[in-house]
């Protein structure tokens, strides 16, 4: 199950599992964001290539208008996935403490 919403400081808070069954809903949400946006991933338990596709499509769009996504609170498993995907070269990533 995935929950995705705007946080109190204007960032995005994403909770749960971003898999292929949830990717269309996540994409609809991210299609609304503008500018430079911090995505709090500290409660993101799981991501698959479908979820990575959502982040990639959003990052491409935002970079085209001078914005970007920043990923924070990234756990060890997610960090491995981002690294093996080469997304650590595409996104600014802050690991979970």
């Amino acid at each position: 199950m995935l929950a995705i919403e705007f946080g109190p400081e204007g960032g995005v808070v994403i909770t749960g599992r971003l898999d292929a069954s949830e990717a269309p809903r996540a994409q609809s949400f991210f299609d609304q964001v503008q500018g430079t946006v911090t995505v709090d991933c500290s409660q993101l338990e799981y991501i698959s290539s479908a979820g990575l596709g959502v982040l990639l499509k959003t990052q491409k769009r935002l970079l085209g208008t001078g914005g970007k996504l920043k990923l924070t609170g990234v756990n060890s498993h997610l960090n491995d996935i981002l690294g093996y995907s080469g997304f650590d070269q595409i996104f600014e990533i802050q690991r979970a403490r």
Partner: protein
Amino acid sequence: MTTSAVFRRSFDSIPEIFALTEKTFAREGIDIRLLPTVDLALEELFTNMVKYSTTTTRPVQVEIVAIDNGVEVTLTDYDVEPFDVTKAPDVDITLPIDARHPGGLGLHLIRRLLDSIEYEYTKEIRRSRITFRKMHSGGPNGLATHKGGTNARD
């Protein structure tokens, strides 16, 4: 004990697959730390079957068994053309963002996170079987075993 279940060819089956892995890991005492990688591999292989084997409506069978120091999972797809996932090309992760697209990323990822993945196709009954293993001491250091069969899409 082997846990076996069949799943409808739909992305809507993914939460049901995750429920099966969680329940099986708990019942069989499989290390929960292996679960995210097993779920990822199952999702990527299952969605690949759903997306590319569109000539069949038969469900996909998933079998999970605890093995020494890890877990072994088999996906079986009936009445399909061969597609050897072990021979799918890697993604060039060094490309600039404008040249990147998500296609192929799932298989690229799981080949790095699993300890082994094998593909077998039985032509007479048009059956694809993919078996993978995830061990405590293995990955993410690349595959120990990488064994494939015929790939009709090469």
